[in-house]
């Protein structure tokens, strides 16, 4: 029948309404599927668009059969080929009331696949039909379809309107073994979750479902409570605990048991007596059950719900070890690792017991298992084992695949950075580890390493010599210059060696490294940093050189050394000093200019400007040297003294970390009213291209290196000079010895472990950690250096995080709390129908005054405020919790805001409402639980 359909129907494409011919020659779904399957791969889009055009025409047909088939085809295309079907929502609605079960079924499937609770605007039109199909008089399959649609696309309005219609389906009076009752329970859950206001209505029937003789009903109800309890505040469900416990004792179904355990996981921490009573049944299940899913759920319940009951924990840990040891089931290995990471630091002995399996998992063929193992290991890092674990991971990153290598590096970097390097005692070690990470061929974490190198430079004075040493190792290696991921690290290295050049053993070498020809591979901004570093080094060399001469002269004159000769000179050996002198001579000759000269022509202004600065300095130095040759007593020349002072003061002030909150501390000048002015601006400005910038940037010190001494005419250098450079510094064109940094004199913290870097991976991994994962006391041979911390600035990210759902869940659990405790109370939700936004509803509930939830909210927001205000002082103690993403904090802060706004709202309300009422409602809670549990 459909053979020539596409050609024959195309002649009707302009016809306004489909005709009988259309319905006679309509392509069926099978035809469409066959056409799609026989199509060559490329032709699919055109075929699909033709099919949709066809459907658009057919779906308007007055004939229900034609419409139904068109709808069916569209459903197929939208669910399997991702075509948009939202435009047909109305046509699906049209078919819903159809008396034909086939059409009705098609229409319901189409609607449930395409309706979207917030974007389908015809949704309210379905209310009537849904109510009709939900009514007990309609055939059960129809009600079942309606329940599906309701549960998938319930908007708050729809939920509110149809909740009463769920009641007859939920009640046991409908035929005892009706398949609809469990479905109604699931639909009730969804209705509750989108519209907490219906809680007083639906909660009681849902609770009644728990005592149904039909296991399916119990299962559905338990499932609903499991979702409710695990997604919000579980407190309101605590009074139901005896009921759940009864089901636990009676039910033999694993499906129900798993759901029950989910509920108990949330309830047990709230009520110690409940936890105590759970130990026996849980241990029993752990021992006897053969279903791994149930065993895993038991383990989870024990670990997160009953961590204080050693007997249960012991048994669960044994099960986890079995999981980890199952060689043939990756799922169990994965879940074993996950289970271990649920255990708090208090039970780190459990991880310690399975240490070998955990470490071995780092080499698992499954990347997900590796990641999970890594996560678990990072949780177990303490200041006593951070060295061993980091070294292990960084070494392993060398051998692992690029993606995982970077995950390893990431883990080490973020863990060590946590809370301003709180775990790091030996910064020399950490700095050299950073250098090692940079040499990992897969490393793409340049930005983070750069940040940390600079940050440690600023914060930890004692780490600077080692930083400079590591930076030197990175800078003199020409092989690193070509790697685009490393340029950020090199930039940090250049900055460090410029800023802390006084710790360098050989500044001349540094200058040569910074000016080597391959630096042309670097991006301009990094080159600018390089040149600036050269500038600093030169300035330093010059002043040291002059100081040196001064000292020798002064001492030869028999005068005592004054403060002029700083400790810098003392710390440098005589050899270094002479090197510096050489350096000036060397720099002053063609060498430096050869490289920098061309740069002054560079397009990039940053590079250009700094190159000019540098050239200016070099020219000045050259002049000074000529003074030297002219008159021996040049030291007495005032000009030199001035220049030395100038240069020194230019870089003398130490850079420090800037607090994140620094901006807040700038006092607002009196009389400055920001909002008003801006409001004026907004009013007066019609074009928005002059939007005022809100960010004010400032730096700790103004860097006045700009005033270049009228940049000397840049001498044009020929390429021959470059060639000469190559000859002189052949070193930079040879492949470097990889282990240059390691051959240096500083004793490496991880030396004994290094040999393990070849051989069988998992065995090595295990061998590498003879060290235990659990924290223990270690005697540090040297004290931890001072790390500069800015009280508020570094600690912004400290509040315990919350889920985004919270405010909504509070609402729901508050409503349920009401429903449970004040069951007799008439529902006060009738007048809130029209309110759509959830914010609006929050207010409404407060206004209608359900005092229990209110006082609870008050308490909570009060607590939270307290926490956030107290968090400043608690920083040190809460190290583990502090590692949170800043985004969450923002959310959290916002929430604090909202909550405090809400609580102030409540306070206002409490003024004109008797306080005793709230107390009266809260009071019964505690006795109720006692009665149930004892």
């Amino acid at each position, binding site marked *: 029948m459909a053979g020539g359909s596409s050609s024959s129907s195309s002649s009707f494409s302009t016809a306004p309404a489909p005709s*009988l011919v259309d319905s006679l020659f309509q392509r069926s779904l*099978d035809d469409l*599927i066959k056409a799609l*399957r026989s199509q060559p791969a490329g032709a699919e889009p055109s075929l699909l668009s033709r099919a949709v055009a066809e459907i658009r025409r057919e779906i308007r047909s007055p*004939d229900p059969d034609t419409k139904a088939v068109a709808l*069916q085809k569209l459903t*197929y295309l939208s*669910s*399997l080929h*991702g*075509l*948009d*079907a939202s435009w047909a929502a109305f046509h699906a609605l049209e078919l819903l009331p159809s008396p*034909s*079960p*086939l059409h009705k*079924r*098609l229409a319901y*499937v189409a609607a449930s*696949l395409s309706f*979207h609770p*917030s974007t389908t605007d015809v949704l309210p039109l379905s209310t009537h039909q849904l109510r009709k199909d939900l009514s007990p008089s309609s*055939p059960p*399959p129809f009600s079942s379809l309606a*329940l*599906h649609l309701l*549960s*998938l*696309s319930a908007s708050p309005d729809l939920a509110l309107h149809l909740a009463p219609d769920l009641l007859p389906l939920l009640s046991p009076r409908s035929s005892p073994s009706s*398949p609809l009752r469990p479905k109604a329970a*699931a639909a009730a*859950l*969804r209705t509750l*979750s*989108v519209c907490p206001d219906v809680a007083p209505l639906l909660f009681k029937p849902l609770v009644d479902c728990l005592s149904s003789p039909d296991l*399916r009903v119990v*299962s559905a109800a338990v*499932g*609903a409570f499991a*979702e*409710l309890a695990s997604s*919000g505040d579980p407190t309101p469900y605590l009074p139901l605990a005896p009921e759940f416990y009864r089901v636990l004792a009676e039910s033999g179904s694993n*499906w129900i048991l798993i759901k029950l355990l*989910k509920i108990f996981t949330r309830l047990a921490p709230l009520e110690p007596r409940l936890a105590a009573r759970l130990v026996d049944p849980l241990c029993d299940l752990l021992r006897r059950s053969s279903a*791994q*899913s149930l065993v*895993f*759920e038991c383990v*989870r319940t024990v670990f997160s719900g009953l961590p204080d009951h050693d007997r249960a924990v012991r048994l669960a840990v044994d099960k986890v070890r079995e999981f980890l040891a199952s060689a043939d089931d*990756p*799922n169990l290995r*994965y*879940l074993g690792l996950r289970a271990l990471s649920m255990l708090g630091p208090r039970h780190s002995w459990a991880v310690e017991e399975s240490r070998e399996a955990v470490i071995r998992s780092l080499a698992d*063929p*499954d990347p*997900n*298992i590796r*990641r999970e193992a890594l996560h678990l290991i990072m949780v177990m890092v303490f200041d006593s084992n951070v060295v061993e674990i980091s070294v292990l991971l960084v070494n392993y990153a060398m051998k692992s695949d690029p993606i995982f290598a970077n995950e390893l590096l990431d883990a080490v970097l973020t863990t060590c950075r946590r809370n301003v390097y709180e775990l790091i005692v030996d910064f020399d070690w950490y700095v050299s580890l950073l250098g090692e990470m940079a040499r990992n061929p897969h490393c793409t974490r340049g930005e983070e390493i750069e940040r940390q190198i600079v940050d440690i430079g600023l914060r930890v004075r004692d780490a600077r010599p080692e930083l400079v040493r590591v930076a030197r190792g990175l800078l003199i290696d020409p092989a690193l210059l070509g790697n685009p991921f490393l340029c950020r690290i090199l930039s940090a290295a250049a900055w460090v060696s410029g800023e802390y050049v006084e710790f360098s053993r050989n500044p001349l070498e540094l200058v040569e490294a910074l000016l080597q020809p391959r630096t042309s591979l670097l991006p301009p901004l990094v080159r600018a940093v390089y040149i600036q570093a050269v500038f600093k080094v030169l300035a330093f060399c010059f002043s040291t050189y002059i100081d040196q001469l001064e000292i020798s002269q002064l001492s030869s004159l028999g005068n005592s050394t004054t403060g002029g000769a700083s400790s810098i000179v003392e710390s440098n050996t005589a050899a270094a000093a002479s090197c510096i002198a050489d350096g000036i001579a060397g720099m002053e000759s063609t060498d430096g200019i050869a490289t920098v000269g061309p740069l002054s022509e560079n397009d990039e202004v940053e590079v250009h400007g700094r190159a000019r600065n540098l050239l200016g300095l070099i020219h000045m130095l050259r002049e000074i040297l000529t003074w030297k040759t002219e008159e021996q007593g040049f030291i007495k020349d005032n000009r030199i003294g001035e220049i030395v002072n100038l240069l020194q003061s230019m870089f003398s002030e130490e850079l420090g970390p800037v607090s994140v909150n620094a901006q807040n501390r700038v006092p607002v000048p009196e009389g400055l009213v920001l909002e008003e002015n801006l409001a004026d601006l907004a009013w007066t400005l019609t074009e928005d291209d002059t939007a005022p910038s809100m960010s004010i940037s400032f730096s700790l010190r103004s860097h006045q290196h700009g005033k270049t001494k009228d940049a000397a005419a840049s001498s044009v250098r020929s390429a021959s000079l470059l060639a000469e450079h190559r000859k002189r510094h052949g070193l930079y064109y040879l492949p470097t010895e990889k282990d240059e940094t390691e051959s240096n004199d500083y004793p490496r913290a991880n030396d004994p472990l290094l040999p393990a870097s070849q051989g069988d991976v998992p065995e090595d991994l295990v061998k590498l950690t003879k060290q235990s994962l659990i924290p223990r006391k270690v005697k540090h041979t040297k004290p931890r250096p001072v790390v500069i911390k800015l009280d508020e600035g570094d600690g912004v990210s400290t509040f315990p995080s919350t889920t*985004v759902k919270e405010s*909504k869940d509070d609402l729901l659990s508050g409503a349920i709390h009401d429903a449970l405790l004040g069951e007799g109370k008439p529902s006060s939700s009738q007048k809130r129908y029209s309110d759509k936004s959830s914010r609006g509803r929050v207010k409404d509930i407060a206004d209608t005054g359900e005092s229990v939830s209110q006082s609870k909210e008050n308490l909570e927001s009060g607590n939270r405020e307290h926490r956030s205000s107290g968090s400043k002082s608690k920083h040190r103690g809460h190290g583990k919790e502090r590692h949170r993403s800043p985004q969450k904090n923002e959310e959290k802060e916002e929430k604090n805001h909202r909550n405090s706004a809400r609580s102030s709202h409540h306070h206002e309300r409490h003024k004109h409402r008797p306080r005793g009422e709230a107390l009266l409602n809260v009071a019964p809670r505690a006795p109720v639980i006692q009665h149930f549990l004892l």
Partner: protein
Amino acid sequence: MNYIIKIHFVILLSRQGKVRLTKWYSPYSQKERTKVIRELSGLILTRGPKLCNFVEWKGYKVVYRRYASLYFCMCIDADDNELEILEIIHHFVEILDRYFGSVCELDLIFNFHKAYYILDEILIAGEFQEPSKKTVARLIAAQDSLVETAQEQASSISNMIGQATK
């Protein structure tokens, strides 16, 4: 809007990345759905055999299992029970198998509505519903017979004449 939900969606993918069934219990727009499918097929189809059946995806966990050429995927919250979901998937496959008589990909392609009906008996609002395979089979059969009798009535001669003269 945040839904309190267990299973966020169910997707059946063929080994070639063709979609064979999708059911969304959390609201996703069509654009998001296409994106989710693309991302997940990239994540799941590339995974080799003998790896675990779970992938982490945007803070959720996707549990998948391969049967012949089809991947059955379900998305759950990160702290849900993965093994339970694996059992639900298996349960679903067994019921399909029983209904179609050793089910294959083609059965699902040409009877995609039936697959939805069966899935709807097992999951409602993302909640697992019906533990008994027998009951599901019975319910589906009852629905089918209801539809068939209605169809027979509809296709009686008088009806056809009525349609033709409309």
